């Protein structure tokens, strides 16, 4: 606050002589991220947006109808608590978690990880420090490399220790992809795209990639005793 212009209070009835101050500006304006406001072309919602909604609705109905005409919902025999199928599988969207359950203790895979994922998703907008999304390698490349490799080593050690290769290999692939712009000076095409990606974008990309890989493994590559099988 010491860079605020010193303010003397003068009282006078002559407004031309002593003008009243209505605001005090610091000598330097604080550096703040100001979103650029660009004038954009506006169109009428009716019919431009409404027609798109109607067509979208029709297409959704048509697609669901077509799937429903040709693929029947599964129905097995009546539930029997005495007869456990091998393997018993959760709905497909939870098979990534069930795959983790195979490697980690249930408290970690079934309780801790889902809760942490939901918390992480919720706090994303509140912990977005890098709001302009500078690329991962934009500044202090050596330090970034050290932190990144350290994090990857910890993930690798944990996942290999627990034989969670479904975590290790996707992480390795993402780690190698992150390293490409560090070693290759090329800044165009896919490498340029990698160069521009920020840390948060990499982390979410890693999460999505792992979720997809684990779900695919759980759905297609797990058979009796949760052993590895091929789907063909």
């Amino acid at each position, binding site marked *: 606050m010491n860079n605020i212009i010193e303010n003397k209070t003068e009282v006078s009835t002559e407004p031309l002589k002593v003008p009243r101050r209505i605001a005090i500006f610091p000598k330097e304006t604080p550096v703040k991220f100001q979103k650029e406001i660009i004038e*954009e*072309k*506006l*169109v*009428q*919602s*009716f*019919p*431009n*947006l*409404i027609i*798109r*909604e109607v067509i*979208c*609705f029709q297409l*959704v*109905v048509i*697609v*669901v109808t077509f*799937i*429903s*005409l040709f*693929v*029947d*919902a*599964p*129905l*097995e*025999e*009546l*539930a*029997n*608590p005495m*007869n*456990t*199928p091998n393997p*018993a*599988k*959760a*709905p*497909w*969207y*939870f098979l990534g978690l*069930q795959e983790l*359950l195979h490697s980690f203790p*249930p*408290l970690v895979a*079934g*309780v801790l990880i889902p809760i942490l994922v*939901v918390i992480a*998703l*919720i706090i*994303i*907008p509140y912990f*977005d420090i890098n*709001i302009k*999304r500078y690329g991962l390698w934009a500044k202090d490349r050596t330090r970034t490399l050290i932190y990144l490799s350290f994090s990857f080593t910890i993930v690798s050690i944990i996942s290999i220790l627990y034989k969670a290769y479904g975590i290790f290999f996707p992480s390795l692939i993402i780690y190698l992809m992150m390293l490409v712009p560090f070693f290759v000076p090329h800044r165009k095409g896919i490498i340029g795209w990698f160069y521009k990606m920020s840390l948060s*974008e990499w982390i*979410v990309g890693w999460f*999505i990639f792992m979720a997809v890989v684990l779900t695919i493994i759980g759905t297609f590559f797990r058979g009796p005793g949760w052993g590895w099988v091929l789907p063909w």
Partner: protein
Amino acid sequence: MHSKVWDSIFRSKLPINTNLDRSLVIFNSLTLHIHPVKVREKAIKFSYTFYLGMISFFLFIILIVTGVLLMLYYQPAIPNAYENMKDLQYVVSNGMFLRNLHRWAAHLMVISVFLHMIRVFYAGAYKPPREFNWVVGVVLLVLTLLLSYTGYLLPFDQLSYWAVTVGVNLIQYIPVIGEKTKFLFLGGHEIGEYTLVRFYVLHCVILPLVMVLLIAFHFWRIRKDGGLH
């Protein structure tokens, strides 16, 4: 078309020629007034949002309609629930088609809601002032999964019974409150008649109600935070 009856039902007068008329179409309609009168041309392009939120919402509408129809043929009891599935397949006209619509729309909704979240993240559309609407969106994703999961038990065949067993067994690992929570959800120590009733009530009443309220709030916040405008 341009009759006294038409005018009494629809507050917008035909023909619609000017931009004022087009604005009044939005203003004067209960279902449309959630839209702004004008939108950014860029914001309504398919390549901008892939319409994933819209698609999720329409799938939810399909799920409500087919779900209510399925309720007409469903009893949450053992073994009636399973027999109802057989009846849908062999006795009810288009019963299997109805069940297919409900099931595939549900699976597609899980996918579209997830993709919607990814799209919003990479577009940075959660940034201020939209932080809280992102949080509501995360809750809506969790609700979608819970709705899908509670519905999974209702046919009460081997597939649903054991899929739900896998999930429910995890609840008991929650420290301290695990056992009690499991009992609360199952209405007993293992999956039985009361589990079916509880999942039925969650699936058909409680979760959809919360979902509808939060969707309304989600849409309202899009408007207030300056979504399309």
